[in-house]
Every structure is written in C-alpha cells, then in structure tokens.
C-alpha cells in the first residue's frame, strides 16, 4: 500500500474519530446469522437449521456467513429461555463472570458465544451479526438499530427498505441511556436485530418466513455490493426511537387490571395522540393516553413482555442521515 493511501486512511480515521462517525472502509469479512436466541420464536430457528443443512441461499462471494443456533436448550423445549433471557445479558459484567456450573445456563452460553463470535469490543469480533426474532405484535418487518450514528448500518437499512418496498419495513432505534439492553448481537461491530410479526410463539407461519428470508437476502446483497466497491450515496431513513416503556395497569396483587384497548391492538407504528384509548379495564372503562405529545407505539401486546412489565413502548419518529460509504478496496 502506498504512503498516499496510508495518509488517506489515517486522515479518514482521524476524521471519523473527531466527528464520531463510522465511515466503513474495510470490506466485510465475517457475518453471522443467529436464530433461536428465544427458543419459541420459530422463524429464525428454522431458517438457521435449514441453512446449516443447505447454505447456498446465504452464500456470497468472498464473504463468510455462518448460521448459528444461540440457545439450543431453549429451542429444544420450545421456550423463550431456560434460566434468563439470553438477549439481555451480553454486558461486560456477565461476560466476565467466572465460569461455573452455578451460573445460569444463558450466562454460560453467552460466554461461549462471546468466545466464538467476539470477544465484544475487540478487533477479532465478527463484523456483522443478524439476530432473528419474532414478535406476537403486529410490527411487520422491523430492523433494530442500536447506534444512531452508524453510517454503514443506516445505509444497509436504507437498502433493505428500498428493496422490500412496497412491503413496509420499519426501523426501531433502541439507543437510550437506560432502556438500551445488552443484546446477543452486540458483540459484533455491526449488530442488526431482525424482528418480524405478528406470529404466535411456537408457530411457524409461511408468510412470516418468506418476509424474514427476503430481509436477509437483501442484507447480504447489500454487503456483497459494498464489498465489490459500489458507492452508496448519502441517504436518509425514518426511524422510531424508543422513549419510554408503558406497563399494564395492575391491581394490588400485581395482576393485570386492564388490557390493550381494541383501538390500539395491532396498531404498532401508527400515531397515538393524547386522549386516544390505550387500555380497557376488566370493568369496561377506557384509559386514554396522557401527556401532550403524539407517540408511535411498538411491541403492542407482546406475549414475552408481560413479565417485563411492558404493554407497549412509546417511540418518537425522526430522520437519520448517513454519509456516503464506499469500500476502500477499489
């Protein structure tokens, strides 16, 4: 590599550090696709199992794409988790605990996964991890973003959304000082959550399978085009940023005293205004949205979130911009 190239690279890197934006230059080499992080979210389980037997669909020249079942014991029992939620424990404290049989199954598993695909925050970690999920909520095709300043992923998501159109594809931004959680995919440099619903736990629907399959196809096509040197001009995407989680109204015993109102049920992403019905009590009373701003609810009536005390999450709609990106090989 000539001195001139080196200076360009180091200037770019310096510029990137100064402006805190990632302008990906290196080609993407190692990609993983995780299924079964929650053992009863079947689309990812069966796509990964299928690709482990026949991986033609996910191959791209020059790219290593590894399908992987993250929580095999939960998959075998068709349950979300055995001891604790695998998708909440990839923080450095859990990853650093001394390995022992007394640790919850998922913590031991997280350390194994970190060893295979990480370590988290190191140069050796996988470039991209796609983590496949389903939801009982009517969220359609959803991409989950953890960092609002990640040019590369904003570009990827823009490409996926454009390719899927007219099928809607939403972007959920979970960047938040206290609400962001330590996901399985967060050990990669570029973590991508893929969430498709509505699908009941323990059920595999052909239409949902087809949608998730298409999302992965477009994502891998994007990476391939990027690696081949294609320039992606600057772009903008609409995203929904998490603001706050709302629990069900409960009685003194902690039991649910009201349920998602029929007007809100299945209305993920649609604007919800102050005064609009949100809950219906078991006695038939309507509880409206308080506050003074319009929000966009997501994860409305997700089965797995009853125990996490989340009836839905409020998001705010905003636009994220990405600089143009181009792989430096060309």
């Amino acid at each position: 590599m000539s001195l001139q190239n080196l200076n360009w690279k180091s200037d770019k890197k310096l510029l990137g550090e100064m402006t805190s934006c990632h302008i990906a230059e290196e080609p993407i080499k190692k990609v993983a696709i995780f299924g079964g992080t929650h053992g009863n979210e079947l689309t990812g389980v069966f796509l990964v199992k299928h690709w482990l037997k026949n991986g033609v669909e996910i191959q791209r020249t020059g790219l290593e794409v590894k399908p992987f079942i993250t929580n095999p014991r939960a998959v075998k029992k068709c349950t979300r988790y055995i001891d604790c939620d695998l998708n909440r424990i990839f923080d450095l404290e859990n990853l650093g605990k001394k390995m022992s049989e007394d640790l919850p199954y998922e913590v031991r598993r997280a350390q194994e996964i970190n060893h295979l695909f990480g370590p988290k925050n190191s140069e050796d970690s996988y470039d991209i991890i796609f983590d496949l999920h389903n939801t009982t909520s009517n969220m359609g095709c959803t991409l989950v973003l953890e960092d609002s300043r990640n040019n590369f992923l904003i570009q990827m998501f823009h490409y996926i959304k454009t390719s899927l159109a007219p099928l809607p594809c939403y972007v959920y931004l979970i960047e938040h000082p206290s609400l962001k959680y330590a996901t399985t995919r967060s050990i990669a440099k570029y973590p991508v959550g893929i969430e498709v619903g509505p699908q009941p736990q323990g059920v595999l629907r052909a239409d949902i399978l087809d949608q998730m399959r298409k999302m992965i196809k477009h994502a891998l096509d994007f990476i391939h085009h990027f690696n081949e040197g294609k320039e992606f001009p600057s772009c903008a995407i609409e995203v929904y940023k998490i603001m706050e989680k709302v629990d069900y109204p409960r009685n003194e015993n902690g039991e649910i005293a009201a349920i998602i109102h029929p007007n809100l049920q299945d209305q993920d992403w649609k604007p919800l205004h102050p005064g609009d019905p949100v809950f219906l009590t078991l006695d038939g009373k309507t509880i409206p949205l308080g506050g003074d701003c319009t929000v966009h609810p997501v994860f409305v009536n997700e089965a797995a979130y009853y125990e996490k005390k989340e009836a839905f999450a409020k998001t705010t709609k905003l636009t994220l911009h990405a600089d143009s990106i181009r792989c430096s090989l060309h």
Partner: protein
Amino acid sequence: MCSLPVPREPLRRVAVAGGKHGNEMSGVYLVRHWLLAPAELQRPSFSAVPVLANPAATTACRRYVDRDLNRTFTSTFLNSRPTPDDPYEVTRARELNQLLGPKASGQAFDFVLDLHTSTANMGTCFIAESSHDVFALHLCRHLQLQYPELSCQVFLYQRSGEESYSLDSVAKNGLALELGPQPQGVLRADIFSRMRALVATVLDFIDLFNQGTAFPTFEMEAYRPVGIMDFPRTEAGNLAGTVHPQLQDQDFQPLQPGDPIFQMFSGEDLLYEGESTVYPLFINEAAYYEKGVAFVQTEKLTFSVPAMPALTPAPSPAS
C-alpha cells in the same frame, strides 16, 4: 360412546372453567375476574361457579406442567391409585373430578363450560361431544341465533370407540368454547369481550331451560374429525416445511384434493392427496406441533336435532 340424555331437572350446579391450559389467557383472566366479582355468573335459577382448572400451569404461563390436563380425564387416570410421583395434572384431574364429578355419576355437576383459545383461526367454535349431545347442541343453536354476525361453527370431537378425555366430560353435560386466533400468553381485548359475552349467553340459555322453555327441533351443520395431518418432517423428526400460505388461516374452508397444504423450506409445495373434500381445523395450532398435528381433517355433516321439551314443573308440596 356416551349417549347423553336430555336433563329432566333444572340445571343447578354449573361451573365455568378457565386456564385448563395455563397460557390461554382469556379464560384465565375471566375466571380471575369472576372469583372477585361473581355477580356476573348469577342467574335467577342458579349461580355458576368459576374454576381455575390448572393453577400451576397458569402461574407459569405454560400449557401444562407435566401433561396436558385436557387429555387426562379418562377413567385410567381418574380411577388409578394416587402415588407421590403422579404427574401434577393427574393429581389435579382427580381433584377436579372430585369437585365437579365424579365422572359418570349422579353427583356430577350438571354442566361445565370450558374456555379455550387457539393460535389457529378458529373464529368462534363450540366443541361438543357428538351428535347425540342434544342439550349441548340446542345451546350451540341458541348461541348461533344470538350472534349471527359471528359465524359460529360446531365441532363434534369424539371419535367412535374413544372415551372422552376432556374436562366437560366429567359433568353430566358440557361444552367447550374455542376462540381464535390468539397467541399463547397474549390477552386480546376483542377475544376477551367475545368470550365474556358468549359465557353470559350460555348462562342465559341454561336459565331459560330451567324456567321451562321448550326448544324445537332443528337442522344442525357440524364438523366431525376424520383424521389428522402432520407437518412434513425430516428423518430426524424435525420440521421440513410448514403450513402453506394458501391453507394458513383457512380453518373451516373446504380443502380439495390437489390443493397445496405445505411449503417446504427448500421451496416446493406439497399438495393434499386425499380422495375427497375435507374441512381442516386447528390449522397451525402451536400446542399441536408436539402432538404431530398440523391440522385436523374433518367432514361436514348435517343432521336433525330432536326437540327439547320444556321441563315439567315439579309437583308442588302437599299443603
């Protein structure tokens, strides 16, 4: 096969059971509500008792702890000697048999209504034992007439030669409500309201009967099982495909030979190879994957239900 005689006395001992499967939330929450506010279950001629059928499974939000409670009400389980190693649901089935039965005895409850939801697109479905279940069928007819907008279907679950295995077979008469689609672990307001309204109408019917109403003969259309179809599987027994998009959600719609039923992960369609039209139910029910059932094949039948005469009032005591 049990031939259930039409009741000759008013029905006084009535139970409404929810949470037979602990993750079918509508029944769970209705029963919890009624345990605190029982007035809703009272009628002039009787009061219904709410029962949480499987408390441990309900607490864990699972279908069952050890085995499916709704398959445990057979005499084999109910009459065998208790041991400390008995599965939770076997012990519980015996308790419920004591409470609501004993099955096939004179002391059994007059009527049990069993509340269920399904991940399949079952709409509003009433499940009775057989075409001989005259009281239950008149009840279904009454519900259909009260809710014409709901397109209520009747499923007769008993296969000839088989003993009834579900809770409502413990009482002298019974019926199950099966509403869907609703995911396990989710409580939808629309399904909840519909179930609540249907329960109220069931109790109204029993009260009407108790008060001496006669119900005329009628023609009933119902569905009866003729077989089941499992998912396509690999040699290892894992899924090799899933319900075809054209069959998904088409419960109660006719399935003709040659129609697609499964879509393989590798892309091909599998077609229905039966010889005649069937009506599939419980299409893609989550709880049936482990039972090897992708859908239940049924035949549609039409038959006459004899009139149910009014109860003759009991002779007044001598003055």
